[in-house]
Each structure stands twice: as structure tokens, then as C-alpha cells.
């Protein structure tokens, strides 16, 4: 039976050729490390978000009068609704952590360098889209926490003169967070962002396969240092086959990812649901200590610390710009960050600053 299906597919799509070129004869460098699997882990994480999100979509009602109730019903009445909601919420948080770790390691290994500038830009844009997913999804349960955290975040653009109010009104669909905002964020979350995101994933994966996976720079200096004049795919004839060796490593990391997710669901189910997350949104009553999600805490704290808000937000936009266009700004040929003390120092400082601001913003 299995052979019959295989034969049927072989005749129609050339299955053997496909598996040979894409899996068994596709070779990755021998010294490829565990950090190179993080992109695949993120991909699996996104897949889990999509699957759990579709289940939630069946029962969720995007209306201010019903949104909170529908989420509570998913948590209490829908069979195993809690499981999918928890997977979606916990998954989104650890997914963002994985994506950030992916970018940090790619940066440290210098894999953003030519010819992979576009891969980096695509990845950076994907991070921004992921954060927008997080922001828009946060409002949907229509709780006190989500209502006021969204109020804070959508207030940020008002620091810009002339256009700021317009941007804030565009996001909110009015002067305040209302049913219209909920509608907009819902559409953003389930209809506008997914196709944008899928296109970026397609571009990212296409570029990785087209250019060839980058070797780990530590201990070796196998990358071309001469000027890049023509397209050349990076191949590793003496490397190990992608399937099954590297693929198994990737799967192992996915298992760890899912295990961490279920560890949190089992032992810390209320990690991301403080009291305000179980109270329906009340536009008339502002709760104390409202703050955005952990991944927005550092920028939020930075904004609170810089006395001129316009300058604060401008600096953040500049930093995002530098982050996205970094491969074009970094003209050094040396890939190994351990041989570049200045860059290493600045990077460590920024990373430490991020962590400090995040915890500072929390308290």
C-alpha cells in the first residue's frame, strides 16, 4: 500500500529526486551547532500557534460584549479549550523568546554578513511582525490587563507632533480603545498579519536554501573574504546529510520546546494571567501597575526614563532601523565576533541594558 502511494507520487512529482536533492544529498557543515536549529524550532512554534489559533477562532467572538465571556467559555466549557488557549498563550511567549535567541546567536556568529543581508532583513521584519502579532492578540480577550496595556501602547505614537494623533486614532479607530479597536486588532491578528508573515517565511526559507546554510565561524575561517562579484551557492560536499542527522537535531530541539511549553502549562498555568487578566475590561476604572507584556517592557521603561518623549520614541525607531539594516552598516569582513572587541562590547552592553530595563520596567 505504502509502496503504491510512493510510486503514484514518484510518477507525478518525482518524489525520489525531491527527497534526494532536498534531504539526503543536501549537506550541512560538520561543525554546525545546536543554535542553528533555533530557526526550525521557531517555525515549529509558529505552526503550533496557527493550529491552536484556528481552534480558538472557532469559539472566540470579537465583540466587546462577548469577547471576555467567549474566552472564559473556551477556558471552562469547551472541551480541552483550556489546552489550546494555554498552548496559544504560553507558545506565543516562549516563541518570542526563541526568536530573540535565534537573532542573538545569528548575530554572534556573524551569519548576517554578505551574502545573507536579505535573509537578516527578512528575519528582522518577521520579528517585528511577531511582536505585532503579540500586541494585537493581547487585546482580544478584552480583559482589564489587555484593555489598559493596549491603551498604553497605542498612546505611544501621540508623542509625535502632527502625525502622532492621527496614527493613534488610526490604531484605535477613535479616541479610545473601543469595539472598533477590537475589530481592527482582530482583523490584524487573523487576516492581515498571517499572509504578510507567510510571505516573509517563504522569502527567508528560499534565501537560506538558495544561498546555502552558513558555516559556524568559530575555529574556522572558511568564508570568502574576497569581494563578492557573482552568485555562488555555499555547499558542503564533505558535510553531513541534512536528513536524518541535522533533521533529528532539529526535531530534538522542537521536543525540548514543546516540553518547556507543557512544563509551564503544568506547573505555572497562571504565569501570564495576573488578576487583571481575569477581570473583564472596564474603560471607566484604571487598574494600578498596568504594564505591557514582557517583550515590550524594555522599550516601555526606556520611554519612561527619557524626559522628552519624542526623542525617546525617535531613538527607538532609529534603533529598530539600525537593527534591521545592520548588515549594510557593518562593513567589516571578520565574521567571528570574538575577534571584534568593540562590536562585542557594544552588543553585550545593549543586551545587558535590555535585561536591566526589562526588570526595571516590571517593578
Amino acid at each position, binding site marked *: 500500500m505504502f509502496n503504491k502511494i510512493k510510486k503514484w507520487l514518484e510518477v507525478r512529482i518525482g518524489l525520489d529526486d525531491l527527497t534526494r536533492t532536498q534531504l539526503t544529498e543536501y549537506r550541512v557543515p560538520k561543525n554546525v551547532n545546536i543554535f542553528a536549529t533555533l530557526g526550525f524550532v521557531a517555525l515549529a512554534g509558529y505552526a503550533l500557534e496557527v493550529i491552536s489559533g484556528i481552534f480558538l477562532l472557532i469559539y472566540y467572538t470579537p465583540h466587546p460584549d462577548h469577547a471576555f465571556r467567549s474566552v*472564559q467559555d473556551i*477556558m*471552562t466549557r469547551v472541551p480541552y479549550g*483550556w*489546552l489550546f488557549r*494555554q498552548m496559544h498563550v504560553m507558545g506565543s511567549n516562549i516563541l518570542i523568546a526563541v526568536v530573540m535567541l535565534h537573532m542573538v546567536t545569528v548575530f554572534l556568529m556573524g551569519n548576517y554578513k554578505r551574502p545573507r543581508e536579505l535573509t537578516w532583513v527578512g528575519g528582522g521584519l518577521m520579528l517585528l511582525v511577531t511582536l505585532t502579532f503579540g500586541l494585537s492578540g493581547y487585546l482580544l480577550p478584552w480583559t482589564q490587563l489587555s484593555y*489598559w*496595556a493596549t*491603551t*498604553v501602547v497605542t*498612546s*505611544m505614537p*501621540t*508623542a509625535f*507632533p502632527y502625525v502622532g494623533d492621527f496614527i493613534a486614532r488610526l490604531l484605535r479607530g477613535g479616541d479610545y480603545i473601543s469595539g472598533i479597536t477590537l475589530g481592527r486588532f482582530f482583523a490584524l491578528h487573523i487576516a492581515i498579519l498571517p499572509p504578510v508573515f507567510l510571505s516573509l517565511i517563504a522569502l527567508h526559507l528560499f534565501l537560506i536554501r538558495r544561498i546555502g546554510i552558513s558555516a559556524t565561524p568559530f575555529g574556522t575561517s572558511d568564508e570568502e573574504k574576497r569581494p563578492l562579484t557573482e552568485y555562488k551557492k555555499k555547499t558542503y560536499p564533505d558535510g*553531513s546529510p541534512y536528513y536524518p*542527522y541535522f533533521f*533529528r*537535531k532539529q*526535531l*530534538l530541539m522542537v*521536543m*525540548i520546546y*514543546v*516540553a518547556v511549553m*507543557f*512544563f509551564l*502549562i*503544568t506547573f505555572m*498555568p*497562571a504565569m501570564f*494571567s495576573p*488578576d487583571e*487578566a*481575569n477581570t473583564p475590561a472596564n474603560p471607566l476604572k*484604571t*487598574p*494600578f*501597575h*498596568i*504594564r505591557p507584556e514582557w517583550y515590550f517592557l524594555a522599550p516601555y521603561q526606556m520611554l*519612561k526614563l527619557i*524626559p*522628552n*518623549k*519624542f*526623542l525617546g520614541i*525617535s*531613538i527607538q*525607531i*532609529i534603533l529598530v*532601523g539600525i537593527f534591521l539594516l545592520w548588515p549594510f*552598516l557593518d*562593513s567589516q569582513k571578520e565574521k567571528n565576533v570574538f575577534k571584534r572587541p568593540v562590536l562585542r562590547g557594544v552588543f553585550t552592553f545593549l543586551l545587558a541594558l535590555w535585561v536591566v530595563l526589562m526588570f526595571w520596567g516590571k517593578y
Partner: protein
Amino acid sequence: MRYLFISLLVIFILPSFAVGGYKEEFEREFMSQPWAGEQAEENACIACHVSDKMEPKLKNIPQNWQMSIHYENNVSCHDCHGGDPMDAAMSMSRQRGFIGAPKYTEVPEFCGKCHIGILKNYLESGHGKALKKTGKGPNCVTCHGSHKEEQFIQKANIDIINEQRCTKCHSYERAMIMKQALFFTEKKIGELEDNFKSLKKEGVFTADDEKPLFSTQAEFRALFHTVDVSLVKERTDEFRKRIDIIEKNIQDTFGELRFRKNFSAFILLLFTGMGVVLFLISKTPKE
């Protein structure tokens, strides 16, 4: 690249000086909100009562109020005493509804504005009749405290019925029988409240069951204000039945939480196991 940095800085920093006036407006609109970290306390009553100008016996009122059940439930000065807490000059104006402190005999009507059912039962009780007749019977404050001296308004609690307090006016026997009649139902209500607290910590939405408990508890406590032991005993069963239904729901929720924990722990083990297998087979000698 250096020029790029410098020009970017110039582009963004120059307008930030140019729009200096905008900054204050933004700070007012955005950063002074409670979600920016601090709550702007604009309560004229508190500001004046804690100041040095206030005579000592009235100075502790805000502090005692902060210890009370009213504070816990966001019941503020003007909710009982009227007036305008947002306007210092007019805060004690009769035009803004200020009614000040009630006389001793007026206290039940004063509290009864909100505690309607309790007022009705109290007025029909021996306590209420004594107050009406002699002007000296116990009023709400006698048992529950106010915010004078070192008192604060206590949450309804069975411990309020005690020998020291009751024997100020009469012997303790009848009060003790009343306390025994209330005891089991009150104890159960206390346990259920604790259960709700721990369920909330687990992230469970409890309002659906808390509402019936609140109304049961309010009715039961209103009933007690008749100070009629036989009536309390007669109706206790009815309250117990209502409480039993809530208790069953809570137990079901705890059971559901246990099931969830076991189920996700099972999936955790499953994936850990698959991870271990993959780890073992991914170390093949060929590699």
C-alpha cells in the same frame, strides 16, 4: 556610515527641541496616568484630614479608613458623607451634597443608604426598637466600628459577636445561642471565600460562582440582623442548600484543575520521552 549616523541624529533631535511645548502636553496626557506608574491622588478630604491643621482626633480618620472593608471595596469619603473630593474649596459644601457626620440615632439610616436589606431587618429587631425607643440602643457602629479613634469598619464576621461587646448592654447567653446558630453557615462561607482566593491565583475566572455566594452571604447576614434565633435556625437549611451548590461547583473546578495538571504533565512526559529517544538515536557512530 558616520555621516549617516550624524544626519539621522540631527533629523530626529532638532524637531524634538522644536516641539518642546508638545512634551508637557504629552506628559500630562500619557505619563501621569496611573498606568505610567503613579496614581495622581486628588482627594481633598484626605489631603486636609492628614494635614497638620486638622485637630488630632480627626487626623487619623484617613488611616483608619484605609484599614476598613470600605477601602478594600473602593468606598471613599464622599460615598457616605457626600461633598466633592475633587474640589478643596467646595468639598464640604451642602450644595455638593455634603451631609457630614450623622447623629447617633441617625447612623442606621446613614449606613442603610447602601445596606438596605440589613437596615430593614435591624429596624424590626430588638436592637433597632431599643434605639428608636430610648435613643441609646446599639446602632451599626456599636458592633462594626467606624473610623473614629483606633477603630475601622470591620468586614462582617462572626467574631464581632463576642462576650466583651454584647455584655456592654445585656447578658451573653442569647448572643451565644445566636452565634452557635450562625456558626456552621458562616464557617462554610469563610471556607468558600478562601477557595475562591486560591482559584483566582490559579487564573480561574470565578465571578459566576462568587455572585451567588455574595448574595447568599448578604441575605444570611441581613437575616441575622433580626437578632431572632428561632428565625435564623428555621431558615439556615435553605441557606445551606444554596451554599452546597456553590461548594459543589468549586469542588468540580478543583477537580478540573487537577485533571488539567495531570493531562499536561502527561504530554510533558510524552515529549520529554520522544526527546530522549531522539537524543539517543541522533548520536549514531556514522556521524
